[in-house]
């Protein structure tokens, strides 16, 4: 069995994808998983990809967003948010 890719490396590769596409394309979890399977053939599986996404979200490097469907993006202040109400 091939050596599996460490979760941190998968998370970094996913983060690069999301960062490079910011403002141009939104990725869903499954898009990221499919991309990782192409990038590391036979060396990643669903559980590793889920763990990498969890790490990205829990660390605050990425956030989930909703625009018709659920996506993973870089954190940002909503354009629609009123700055006066955004302050704690």
């Amino acid at each position, binding site marked *: 069995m091939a050596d599996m890719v460490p979760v941190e490396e998968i998370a970094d590769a996913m983060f690069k994808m999301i960062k490079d596409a910011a403002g141009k394309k939104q990725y869903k*979890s499954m898009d990221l998983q499919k991309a990782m399977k192409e990038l590391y053939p036979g060396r990643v599986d669903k559980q590793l990809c889920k763990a990498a996404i969890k790490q990205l979200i829990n660390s605050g490097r990425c956030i989930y967003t909703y625009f018709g469907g659920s996506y993973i993006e870089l954190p940002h202040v909503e354009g629609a*948010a*009123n700055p006066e*109400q955004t302050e704690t």
Partner: protein
Amino acid sequence: MADKTKASGKLDELKKGPYPSFVKEIEAAAETNKMAHDLIGQLELSYDEKLCHWKHGGIVGVMGYGGGVIGRYSDVPEKFPNVSHFHTLRVNQPAAWFYKTDALRKICDMWEKRGSSVLNVHGSTGDIVLLGTTTPQLEPVFNELTSLGFDLGGSGSVLRTPSCCVGPARCEWAMYDTLKYAYEMTMRYQDELHRPYFPYKFKFKFAGCPNDCVASVARADMSFIGTWKDDIQIDQDKVRWYAEERKVDIEDVVVERCPTKCMAWDGKELFIDNRNCARCMHCINVLHLALKPGKDRGCTIMLGAKAPILEGAQLSSVLVPFMRMAPPYGEDEATAEDLPELIDNIWELWGEEGKNRERVGEFIQRIGMGNFLDAIGLEPQAEMVAHPRTNPYVFYDLGKDEEEEEDE
């Protein structure tokens, strides 16, 4: 900013009539809550202009979560600054919606302090829906909810909060323990509930009998509807009592209304051809003291229902005709122990091959039921029907139609 706590104009119409009025409730909340105050103003503006002034989307949860919060912003924040953020939170309800009054009181106290003080109990999703708060309040609200023993529910492309009917807790018709399965599925699939991994939403609903009080056949991607395998239990003395003492016209209201016409009444005895019974429960509902479901009980699993959002509405169709939901389990029958594998197979296929925003029912329509069953490893069965007396997967007249077309 509109300076009023009372609705006027078109909203007045929604205060009339004998029924509870959400406008009256928001007015009451507006006396002490600024958000509710501005909510009335924006609602009036929407009714006057016939335009929705909410922008939807963006923020979806608290730290680590991808669901449970529905982001909502006003597009007229200069007029109504107190509702410029008006996010909704879904709170995972307990199975069958049983609460101690103390729990509800604490949620309400928290929401008066941190939100608009307006809520739905319950929303159509089944969750408690807390209506309207600001972005900085999301984490504090979540912290207080968890300290009260509650969690956020599902929103977005996740497993939505599983819901169930009152089941055996209050209903004699429950064929299996709906509360147990709603709870177990909620706990088992926490990851899928909070972290979006699907092409689109996915809903479980557990109905204890074919009366389907949670409308799972119309709303859930995967419905679990209680049913039985053996014969309906009949107390003929009670049937005659209905006819003689209660003056029930059994021929008219029972026999004639049986969808499969599997019953007969000779004035003394009721006969049921159980082989042709579709388990619709109509006769049992009418003669509930005389008829009872059989004793060999379990559930039918159906797949593919959805409300019309992107495409039209669909009802679910049969996937597993009978699954035993409580031991003792037989060797050659589907049992609740097979459920995790079945669900994983469905999610795996739909997750990999489903298009963005494609519900599982639409996915099955696109790839074909035969291919779907093949891919998830289920053998086709004659009972896999969309509704009684039809089979959507077998086209009996196909050859005949082709011949006729050739003749033309």
